[in-house]
Each structure stands twice: as structure tokens, then as C-alpha cells.
């Protein structure tokens, strides 16, 4: 009996002690975890982009978008320095898994920007989501990533890039209405991005009244495209839409000019290879071809300043179309952190992971460079404006992308 009383006394004392420090712990509770940043420690933001290999221009371009966003914040958020770390995601599923696994193991990361390629996101995002993290992609465009039925594995995923459903339809409208083409063929490389984009293109094109003569596929590492182009030529299309990436896209462009029956076919690519690197890969064969890509002329007024900063910082023009989307993604993350972060009495910063996700999904009328961003419940935040550009001989010679669109749907 006596010992029982002693025990209850001990329990009472424990409760009192825990109650004393209790409110603090309760205030920073979060369903999936809290990141604690002590004064002097940095706020860690990570990227997972393709920063090596033939498609590196895409990753470098988006990484620079983040860097300029950090500069615009003065390198600081709520008085804490921002630190950017990152991993190469290689523009394939294996690279996406490797990068996501490595980054998910780092509990200091608050939010991520990435990935670049939809193929990386498909297996990579569930890993980050399970780790409680949130990632905003500047360049994934495959529709399923923000499908309303995408499932809880993708609960930590948003994007500022346009959905392929928009771009594929714009390309098809351009082909049918502007180019007056009735027979088209497509090539994809098995990546979710290209496969979805060409599927939307084909569907819209058929709906408009055109015929699809072939829907072919290559591997991203293929170099000999002549057999597949010969097969496509047998169907006598007037336009070839191949929304793939730089390496394979360069081979298709060059070799299309060498295959009998393909010399006169109009070539059209998409934003995945809208880059000076693509001109290097394709050479003079790229002259006259079309690309569907974000409409830079419709970007907000701040975009001009951004380009000036870019020129000053890196000494060149942007390398790919998604730098502004990456800038917007970073700014959205910074705004959300500012909204949810709580400062403790000792200056320690607490950021709830679920609260951060909620704040990002609640983004509404966010004034970004690419337009006014409002996030849907399934993570689509873009204000998509897609236009079509034509490449001139000067573009290829000087390795610069065309600046003004030749056609826009609006």
C-alpha cells in the first residue's frame, strides 16, 4: 500500500514535470513531423534534377531558377540562411529512385524542388512522400502525376509546370489548324512525359479530323533511328511529332533528313528539347522545325528582370524552358514556409511538415513569373500558356532559342 502511494507520487511528479515543458511540445506538433532549426542553422532546400549527362541543360536551367529565387530573397528566410543541396536524378526511373532515396534520408531537408523528368517522379515522389517531405516540380508534365486519383503516395507532390494535356492539345491544334496537316505520326521514348504527350496529341489530332499514320517508340539511349523513320515514312505522314529529349531528339532530327520519304515531312518537338543543346545535337537539320513550349512572351513583367539577373550571374541566356517555373516553385515554397514556420522563445524555428504541405496546396493567386498560380487539390499549380516556336538558321548558328512564338492558341 505504501509502495503504491509512492508510485503514484512518482507518476504525479513526472506528469507535473512533463506538463511544465508540455505546451512547447504540443504547440509544434505535426501529423508527419516537425523540422527544428536552431539559430544559426540553415533552412535546407534540395533539388533533384538531371544535372549530368546529355540532358543536363534541363537540370542546370531549373537549378539556376532556384538560385536566382534564393538571391532575390537575399539568401535568407525569416532570418535563417537558405542552403541549397541536391542530387542528380539522371532523367530516368533509376536515377529518380536513387536521388529521392538519398534525399529522403536527410531529415534536415524542409522541401524539395524537382524532379525534372516525369520518369524520375513516378517512382521518386512516393519515397519523398513517405519521408514526410514535399516536392514541387518545375518541369514534370505527365498527366498522371496530378491525376485526382493519384493516391496517397503522391500527397507530397505539386508542380508549377503545365500538364501535358494542355501542351499535347496545343501541338495538335497547331498541326491541324495552322499547318493544315491531315496525316501525322508520333514517336515517344517510353518515358511517361513523351508517351502521355504524344497520346494527347494523337487523340486531339484525331478528334479534329486528322489521321495518325504511326505511333512509334524508341529507347532514350537509341542512336540509330533510321529503321524506325523508314517505317514511319512508309505511312507517308506530313508531320512528325516527337516530344522526346535532347539526345534521342537530335538523332531523330538529323536522321529524318537522311531517310527516303522523310525529307519533306514537317518536324515538331516539344519543350523537353527546346534548348540550345538540342541545336548542338541536331545541327542544321533543326532549321525550320517547330517546338511547342511555354510562351515566354506571356510571362509576367518580372521575367525581364529575371533574364537580366540570369545574364549577370551566369553570363548566358537560359538553357531550357523551365527556369521561371523553378523560380516560381521556389518562391511558392518560401512563401509557404514563411506562413507555417513558428519561432520558439529561444529563436528556434519549427516547421510542421503537414502544415507546409497544406500551405502549399492552399496556394491561391500566387503572382509568379509564369502567371497567377493556384494549386488544385491534386497539385496542379500552373497557369499554362503554351505556344509554338519555329527554328531559324540563325538560332542554330548562334545556339539561341527563338524568342517570339510563331503561333499561339489564344
Amino acid at each position: 500500500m505504501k509502495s503504491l502511494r509512492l508510485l503514484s507520487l512518482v507518476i504525479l511528479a513526472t506528469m507535473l514535470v512533463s506538463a511544465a515543458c508540455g505546451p512547447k511540445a504540443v504547440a509544434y506538433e505535426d501529423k508527419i513531423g516537425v523540422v527544428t532549426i536552431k539559430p544559426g542553422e540553415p533552412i535546407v532546400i534540395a533539388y533533384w534534377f538531371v544535372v549530368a549527362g546529355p540532358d543536363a541543360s534541363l537540370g542546370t536551367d531549373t537549378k539556376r531558377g532556384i538560385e536566382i529565387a534564393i538571391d532575390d530573397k537575399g539568401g535568407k528566410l525569416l532570418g535563417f540562411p537558405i542552403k541549397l543541396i541536391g542530387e542528380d536524378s539522371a532523367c530516368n526511373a533509376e536515377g529518380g529512385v536513387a536521388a529521392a532515396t538519398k534525399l529522403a534520408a536527410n531529415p534536415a531537408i524542409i522541401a524539395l524542388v524537382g524532379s525534372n523528368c516525369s520518369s524520375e517522379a513516378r517512382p521518386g515522389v512516393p519515397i519523398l512522400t513517405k519521408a514526410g517531405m514535399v516536392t514541387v516540380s518545375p518541369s514534370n508534365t505527365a498527366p498522371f502525376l496530378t491525376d485526382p486519383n493519384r493516391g496517397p503516395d503522391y500527397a507530397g507532390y505539386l508542380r508549377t509546370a503545365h500538364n501535358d494535356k494542355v501542351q499535347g492539345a496545343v501541338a495538335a491544334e497547331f498541326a491541324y489548324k495552322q499547318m493544315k496537316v491531315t496525316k501525322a505520326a508520333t514517336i515517344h521514348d517510353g518515358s511517361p512525359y513523351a508517351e502521355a504527350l504524344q497520346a494527347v496529341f494523337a487523340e486531339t489530332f484525331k478528334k479534329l479530323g486528322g489521321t495518325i499514320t504511326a505511333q512509334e517508340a524508341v529507347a532514350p539511349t537509341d542512336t540509330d533511328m533510321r529503321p524506325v523513320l523508314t517505317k514511319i515514312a512508309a505511312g507517308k505522314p506530313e508531320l512528325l511529332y516527337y516530344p522526346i529529349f535532347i539526345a534521342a531528339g537530335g538523332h531523330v532530327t538529323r536522321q529524318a533528313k537522311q531517310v527516303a520519304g522523310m525529307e519533306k515531312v514537317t518536324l515538331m518537338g516539344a519543350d523537353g528539347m527546346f534548348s540550345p543543346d538540342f541545336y548542338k545535337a541536331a545541327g542544321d537539320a533543326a532549321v525550320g522545325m517547330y517546338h511547342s513550349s511555354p510562351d515566354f512572351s506571356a510571362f509576367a513583367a518580372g521575367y525581364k528582370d529575371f533574364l537580366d539577373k540570369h545574364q549577370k550571374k551566369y553570363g548566358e541566356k537560359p538553357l531550357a524552358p523551365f527556369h521561371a517555373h523553378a523560380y516560381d516553385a521556389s518562391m511558392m515554397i518560401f512563401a509557404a514556409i514563411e506562413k507555417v514556420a513558428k519561432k520558439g522563445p529561444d529563436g528556434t524555428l519549427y516547421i510542421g511538415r503537414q502544415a507546409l504541405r497544406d500551405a502549399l496546396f492552399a496556394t491561391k493567386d500566387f503572382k509568379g513569373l509564369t502567371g497567377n498560380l493556384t494549386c488544385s487539390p491534386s497539385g496542379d499549380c500552373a497557369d499554362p500558356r503554351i505556344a509554338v516556336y519555329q527554328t531559324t538558321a540563325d538560332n542554330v548558328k548562334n545556339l539561341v532559342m527563338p524568342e517570339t512564338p510563331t503561333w499561339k492558341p489564344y
Partner: protein
Amino acid sequence: MLRRVLESLSLTDSFMWLTGGAIVAVIVVGSAATLSMGRYSGRHWFDFIIFGLAQGSIYALIALGYTMVYGILRMINFAHSEIFMSGPYTACYVAMALSRSGFLESQPILSLAVIFIVAMAVSTVIAVLLERIAYRPLRTAPRLVPLITAIGASFFLQYTFRGLYGSGFQAYPDIRMLQGAWLLGPLRILKIQVVVILAAALMMAGLYLFIQRTRIGKAIRAVSEDKEIAALMGIDVDGMIVRTFVIGGMSAGAAGVLYALMYRQVHFFMGFIPGIKAFTAAVLGGIGNIPGAMLGGVFLGLFESLGPNLFLDGLGVPSPNQLKDAIAFIMLVMVLIFRPTGILGERLAEKKA
């Protein structure tokens, strides 16, 4: 116990034969369906064959390096794909400099010679260094050790070149002489592919004569048959092994330039896929056998080019060209089921026995 093993073996065997038979049936039915569909004319088939030959002759040139090293050292030199990459990647900078100075335009043949020499020299140096630093110290080690070393060397070289030249890619400049096509009546052949096929055939013929007719060739063959006896006969075994690597490096460097002239893009990872394909070609032809490697390379190229459109198109398979690697590797499986030593492998096996 023994009976049970025998039973399970025969089961495996019959399964393998069934698989083989099923694949042959698919090929025959698919080809017949494609041909009766009449989508492709004779001109198309001719194009497919030329594309396949051009691709295959490059595989063959790379495969030579794998097969010769295997013949003499009984190891797979997995770093061979990096020997293939190093030459043309380095020579690309020479080609770009020549193009900027206008020399490439005015003296295309001389420029090409310079590009070939630079590429072959770099590849050869890398191959010889590899042998000296990575493989020779392990000559007496168990066979698995040099194999793993080769994989390590492959990564080391890839990332060394990535450090040297950057992680992006470079593109070979246009050489006007090699652009366009020749017309042979209704047929049309790309100049570059004629050059690739002829150059590869010439090099392979030269190499074959070298191995068969010269004293050094004879010595290399002797070493590959039995190192100890060859040493007793007064043959400098190490010297012959170095010469084998020199030949392998030179053919890989030349193959690399031909590859780069055909596809233009060069980067630090460019050797990986052609390397795997060439290794497949070497196994297909019977590893260790030089004419086998040549034959295997051409076979593989032809299967890749013709296979998807001939075998699968008629069966209504969507986007068959995506499956060309699958077809190439299924062919390898087929050859290994019916002829485990490869197409020309038996002769070698007899000699070694």
C-alpha cells in the same frame, strides 16, 4: 538421386527447346504476315539492310577488342567500352578546332586522317595503360578478380572523362564530303554509311590477315592457346598481351570515330550501350574467335534493324522498334540455346581442349 538430376535436366532441356521453337514460330509467322501486308517495298528492305550493316560493322569493330582480350587473357574487359569512348570524345575537340579554323572545309580528307589518328592514339594509350596498371598485376589472381577490376576501371575512366570534358555532350561538326546520298538507280545509299561499312570491312580484313599471316599474329595466337608453352618457345608473353591491347584499342578508337561521324553526339557515357551490344556480338559469334566477333556484330546490327519491322510489324505489335534491344538479346538467347559456344565458337573449343 542421379536419376532425379537427369530428369530435371531433361525437363530444362525440353523447356529450352520449346522456348526456342516458339520463338522461331513467332519469327516465321510474323515475317510472313509482314511480307503479305505489303507495307514495305524492296527499297525499304534494302534500306533496312544497309542501316543494319552500318550499325553492325561498328559493333563488329568494338567486339574485336572484347574477343581478342578474352582469347588471350580469358577475361571480359568491361572497360573496353570506355576505350571506345575516350578516343572519339577527345578527337571531337580536334574536329571542332579544325572546323573553326576552316581547315576541315578545305582539306576534309587530311582532317579526317588527323581525327582518326588522334582518336586511335588516345584509345590505344588508354588500353595499354589499363593493361599495365589494372590487369597485369592481377595476371595470376583468380579469374573473378580482373573481371571486377575491369568494371571498376570502367567507372574510373567514365568519371575521369566526365571530369575532363564535362558532363554534357559535344557534337562532331558537319563534314560536307560525307553528307548526302548516292543514287544507284532506284536505290539510295547514304555516303556516311558506305564509308562506315567499307572502312570497317577494310580494317577487319587487315586485322584478320595480320593475325593469320604475320609473325606477331602467329605469336598472339600461340599465347592465346597456351601462355606457358608459348613462353617456353621464346615468345614474349607480356609483349604479345600488350600488342593485343594495342590492336583492340586501335580498332575501338576507329570504331568510335565512325560511330561519331554517323551519330555526331559524343559524351562520357556514350560507350556503355555500344559496349554491351558489342560484347553481345562477341558472345553471339563465339567469344575468343575473331571472325566470330565480326560475324556476330553484323548479325546483331541486322537483327536490330530488320527484326522489329520484319518479325513484329505483321503481328500487330504496337511500336515494335522499341523492342529492338529485346529482339537482339532474344537472338543471343536463341544462339546460346542451340549453339552454346556461339556461331563460330566450336572450332575454338576444340583447339583449346
